[in-house]
């Protein structure tokens, strides 16, 4: 009588799982990636490709140019951060991300970054008064931060 222990089907599934895990480990960030950038960067938004011209970022398997801090990158930086957060961490501390993404700070983002007008700052100029207008026009922008989580302040009125 054939049992699951000796089933070739089970062995095949196990081998397949191990194969997938091995493949994932090949794509994961390398442990030898520098934990911090060896040289201090200049002011402003850095362009990685200005020094790393044709190199491939080993962890993310993408060219350094795709991490250039262009306006496009700033809008879609979540994709890169999700791919390889270690690359971000070589320059940015966790607190840099938390300024906007923690959702737990007592100070709203618009006030929090009042000293950094060069950074993207949402919800300015009495946003509470016209957030319903933005919501009617293009609600998907709201869902990026609100909707699944970070609802505490919204729930005060939207019960």
């Amino acid at each position, binding site marked *: 009588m054939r049992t699951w222990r000796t089933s070739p089907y089970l062995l095949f599934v196990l081998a397949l799982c191990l194969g997938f895990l091995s493949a994932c480990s090949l794509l994961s960030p390398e442990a030898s990636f520098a934990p911090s950038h060896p040289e201090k960067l200049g002011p402003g938004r850095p362009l990685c490709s200005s020094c790393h011209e044709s190199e491939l970022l080993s962890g993310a398997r993408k060219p350094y140019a795709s991490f250039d801090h262009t306006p*496009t990158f700033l809008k879609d930086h979540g994709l890169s951060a999700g791919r390889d957060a270690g690359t971000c961490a070589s320059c940015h501390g966790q607190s840099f991300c938390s300024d906007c993404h923690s959702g737990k700070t007592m100070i709203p983002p618009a006030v929090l970054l*009042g000293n950094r007008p060069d950074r993207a700052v949402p919800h300015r100029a*009495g946003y509470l008064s016209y957030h319903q207008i933005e919501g009617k026009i293009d609600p998907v922008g709201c*869902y990026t931060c609100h909707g699944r989580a970070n*609802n505490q302040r919204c729930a005060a009125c939207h019960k």
Partner: protein
Amino acid sequence: MAFNQKKEEPAVSTEKKSRLAEQDYKLSWKITRSIQFSGHYAERNFKDFFAGTNLPSLFRQIETEKYKAQSALLTLGVDKPYQFVADYRRAKRESNGESTRSGAEFRIIPTTFKLKSGLAYHRITAAEVPLIGGTVAFYSLSHSEARLWLLHDGGGYYLSLDAVSYSFDDRNNPLLNGEPKAYLGVASVGIRPSKAFTLSGDVSYGMNSLYKKEVRGLLRIEFHFGGNKGGGK
């Protein structure tokens, strides 16, 4: 067995919906070293999108509604101290119609000079939406946004100024309390006795549909535990 069934008109449309709750497609193209273009297409089916929300009552939409948006972003001078960014976004909601957002920002970020600045203008054109039980049948959501900012960073100190203005087309919009304009000015000054420690203060003055005058002051003390990383950001 037969049941009496009441046939009702659908709330929005009878278009067959995709089974995908969220779809996003992005294309980024570095045309030259200084010019970059990106395009984005997004689609949402609210019926499925909110199935897993932890607060179903929040942002409750018409469940059969569909949302589509196409957007494009063109950046000139990616690697230059003078940067021009033009953006366009067209969104369509079955309940509120089409809207477009278009505009541009001009940024001056010199590497040798310590003063950075930016000037932006955006125009949002949206369809009129019905007002149930109000004094007018429809009201407009269209408006304009303008912004000017300056930042002088001297290393041990910094000064910044930020001015934002909103101008709404329709004074009868019930969400605006009869005040179609809003603006805000923020001035900030800060000192950095060390790399890890910053002391700064903001003063802002503004006006919007909730407050005739809004004055705020903020004293900010920042300490970076662990110090700056190699990139110093």
